């Protein structure tokens, strides 16, 4: 089952909501706001959400996008769910390292390896 918005693709793979982005840059405030709304809706629609956010094809990210990811992390945690990030390019991973968010998020190299980690 798949659900696409203008900025995201959300598919259900064995109970895991897999989210991919349709844009290379997650930097525009309007786009980030929409991404936040769409992901939070996906999380809120599940009892114990299992969410995988893949950054495949994404080459730019701003601090506002990090804020949305943190909001998602907090929402998933409140519902005792699981959130993985995957397919993060070397350049974008540097942003996670600088902000130390690589310690807060569970990050897998690929979406395939992330899928194996869901319990």
């Amino acid at each position, binding site marked *: 089952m798949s659900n696409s918005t203008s900025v995201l693709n959300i598919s259900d793979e064995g109970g895991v909501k897999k989210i991919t982005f349709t844009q290379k840059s997650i930097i525009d405030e*309007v786009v980030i706001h929409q991404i936040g709304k769409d992901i939070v809706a996906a999380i809120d629609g599940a009892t114990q959400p299992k969410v995988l956010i893949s950054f495949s094809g994404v080459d*730019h990210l701003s*601090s*506002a996008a990090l804020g949305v990811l*943190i909001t998602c*992390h907090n929402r998933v945690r409140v519902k005792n769910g699981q959130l993985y990030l995957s397919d993060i390019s070397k*350049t974008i991973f540097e942003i996670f390292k*600088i*902000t*130390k968010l690589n310690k807060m998020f569970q990050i897998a190299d690929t979406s395939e390896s992330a899928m194996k980690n869901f319990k």
Partner: protein
Amino acid sequence: MQLRSEPYIQDKTLTDLRVDLQKVQDGVALALIQNGYTDFAQFAIRLCLEESIVNAFRHGNRSEPGKVVQFHCKIDGESAGFEIQDEGVGFDPEGVPDPTAEENLEIPSGRGLMLMRAYMSEVVHVAPGNTLRMVYKNGPDPTDT
């Protein structure tokens, strides 16, 4: 590509965040390529311009209609310098909480300034804090080890 010999200089009054930011980014991106900046530098500078100009409109000018942001840049083969000035009252950059502190890690905001400080060679807020000066010194990709 032949490297540019004259510095690229842009002075612009920004009135619309999205429209003018995109114009600024387009001009700067071309100048960086023409002056031989690495992909890492282009990424870093684009990110820092986004963060700083959004901050100027949103936090400095509090998104008030009619308030503008003054933008100046000078880019040559040695460095890329930027000055962004908003019409706000300024702020104390030292008073911004450390977003990497354990107790702040889950707070969704407050990372723009930190990213600028991490990526740029110099970041200075001129008192009272409504003018930001940033410099990126051209050089090899620091993540290539």
